[in-house]
Structure formats: C-alpha cells, structure tokens
C-alpha cells in the first residue's frame, strides 16, 4: 500500500480517536452514587468524567442539603430523598451541607 494512503488512514484513526476522547457523543456517561449516612458523605471524594451524573441519597433521619457555592444547590433532602447533578465542566467541586456545614465532600471532574 502506498505510504500516502497509510498516512491518510492514520489521520482518520487519530481523528476518530480525538472525537471519541472529546466525548462529542457521550457514549459512556456514568451514574455515580454518593450516600449520606451518619452526617457523612460517602465516598467523601469522587473522581468522575465530564458528562457523568452524581446522585446523592440521604439515609439519615435528619434532612440534609448538597451545596457547591455558585455551582449547584439541592433542595432540602428528607430521609431517602435524592438529588442528581450532571457535570459538564471539568474542575474540582467542593460541596457541603448548608444545615450541617461540618459535612463536606468533593467531586473531581476530569
């Protein structure tokens, strides 16, 4: 096969790979669960990819919230209520419970 054609195929492959990596079609968006038990977010730190959705579920007998200043804010979550947020931008998202601010967590979006 002439080398020019090989190079052309190589470029195509690279282009395909790039388009896959950029996630122009979010083929692998994942659902990640964070639970609230005993006034604690678990796991406290989660690494996700752009396009992934994190769902927090409160298992305590006391209401909690999930708040990341300027980024997202749940309603008050009573027992067994859940809140979901889909991350569309990379970055570190620190969050806390606005009722019990000693409860903190982190979502790292790559």
């Amino acid at each position, binding site marked *: 096969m002439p080398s020019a054609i090989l190079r052309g195929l190589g470029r195509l492959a690279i282009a395909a790979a790039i388009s896959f990596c950029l996630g122009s079609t979010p083929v692998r968006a994942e659902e990640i669960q964070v639970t609230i038990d*005993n*006034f*604690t977010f678990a796991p406290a730190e989660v690494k996700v990819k752009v396009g992934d959705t994190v769902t927090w579920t409160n298992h*305590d*007998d*006391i*209401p909690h919230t999930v708040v990341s*200043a300027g980024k997202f804010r749940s*309603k*008050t979550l*009573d*027992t067994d209520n859940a809140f979901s947020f889909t991350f569309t931008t990379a970055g570190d998202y*620190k*969050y*806390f419970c*606005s*009722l*019990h*601010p*000693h409860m*903190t967590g982190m979502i790292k979006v790559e």
Partner: protein
Amino acid sequence: MSDHDHHDDNPGVSRRRVLECMTWAGTGVLWTISGGVPRSLGLVGSAQAAEPTGLTFLQISDSHVGFDKPANPNALGTLEEAIAKVKMMPAKPSFMIHTGDISHLSKAAEFDDAERIISQAKLDVHYVPGEHDFLDEEVKFYKERYGKGTKGAGYYSFDANGVHFIGLVNVVDLKAGGLGNLGAEQLEWLEADLKGRSKSTPIVVFAHIPLWTVYPTWGWGTEDGARALDTLKGFGSVTVLNGHIHQVMQKVEGNVTFHTARSTAFPQPAPGAAPSPGPMKVADDKLRSMLGVASINFKPGQQSLAIIDTPLQG
C-alpha cells in the same frame, strides 16, 4: 471554671446570684433570675413551691413538629405534653422563649400545628429560629410568622423586669466546614444594642446553636460566638440559653453561664457517644425522661438566675 453555687465565699462573685433559681426539669427549662447566675434547682413544681417571687420565664426548644421517625413517631404529641405541663404550673411564668427548630421541615402545616399547641400555654413567646425553620423554598414562613419587628434573619432585644434579653440568629449563611454563624452585621447590631447600657443590667442571650464550643466535630458551636461574648464582657450577669443539641449541658465561665435545654421531640447523643449527632432511639419508656422544658427565675437584688430543667417524665 468556678462553681456557681458557691457565690458567698467571694464578694466579687456575688453578682452572679442573679440567676439563682432555675428549675431543672425535662419539659422545658425553668429559669429564675435572682442575682446573676442560673442554677438548676430541681423540678418545675418544687422550684415554684420554693420561691415564686421575681421574674420567671420558660424555655422550650427543638419541637421539630413534623418529625415522625423511630426516635419519636409523634413529636407533636410530646410538644403537647410539654405545654400541658406548662399549663399546670402553680405560678404562671411571665413569658416563654423558644430557642428554635420549631418545625422539622419548615412546612406551613408544621408551623400551624406548632402554633396551635404552643398558644395553648397562653404566654407571650419570644422565638429565635433553628436551621430547620428556614427550609421552605422561599425561606419566608419563619419571617412571616415570627419575624415581626426583628432585624436581619430575626434577631432582636427586649427588656423585662430590669433584665435585658437578646435573641440572636446563628443558623444562616453557614460556611463549608464551619460552625454556627452570627455574621458581621448582627455583631455590629449587638454592640450597638449594648452600648451605654449599665454593666449591672442582667443580660440573657438566647440563640439556637450553642454560642460556646460544645463539640466542633458535630458542628456544635458558633464560629464567631466568642466575638459576641467579647461584647458582653464587663456585664455582671450574663446567661446564655441555647438548644440544638437536645440535651442539658451547663458551663460557668467567669460571670457567664451557658445552658442548653432539652428538646420536646427527640434526644441526641452526648458528644462523641455515637457515630453521629442524629436522633437517638431509646426505649419507649425512657423517651419522656429525655425530653423537657426549662424554667428560669430571676429575683431583683440577687445576681444569679436559677434554671430548672424538667423532664416530661421521671
């Protein structure tokens, strides 16, 4: 830390008598202000029998109306029991303070139910909000119902029988990783409120979350509480009444007495005694010994407030 009961062996401490006769019971705290320092005397009934003179007011806290989990499936019912105890008191208190978490989820129906029961005591009630009272979408129910004539999120002061009462709000604008919060604006107001006031005026400060650091791991304290206490330096008698931790705790530091009241809804564990500060499930026949009210008595001319916490039962 000194023992507030031993005020006679030191003339400098005698001003602490203002709060001499508070009643310990479980329904609420009965506070007697009779010289400076609050004291727990026993049950509401016995304190009343002893010395009903001076100013007596009640503290109830953390009614959590709407709470229906295993720790107490009927929080409205136990509030009703607490108010029934108040109605039966032989001497009618002057008024009542409620140190927050009136409702569990800030629903209109919860506030309505609380009002229906608490109003049966036929006493003026001075409220401060807990974090559970600001959970409605528009954060307006508390303000509409209890916030008339208050500043900011609901702080204010008033006078009764020569005692200056200050209701503070430390449950809004909480910062990640932090504790309760008063904020700069409220602290400025507090300073102005106290300015020019005679240092011999007995002061009672009440707020939901403890103003002193009880247990930071569980968020039991107020970030800028020490700044509020700084503005109270020099006053001969300062009594700080809080709720939030659903158990009785008392500490005396100089001329400041700190006291937390029981909840009328459910108990919470002692600091560090459980994995979290969540509602504590106890045996059904023990529950009412861990809920209650407080009664506080103040006698003019003396410098200590007496606090009596009375359980609903036992």
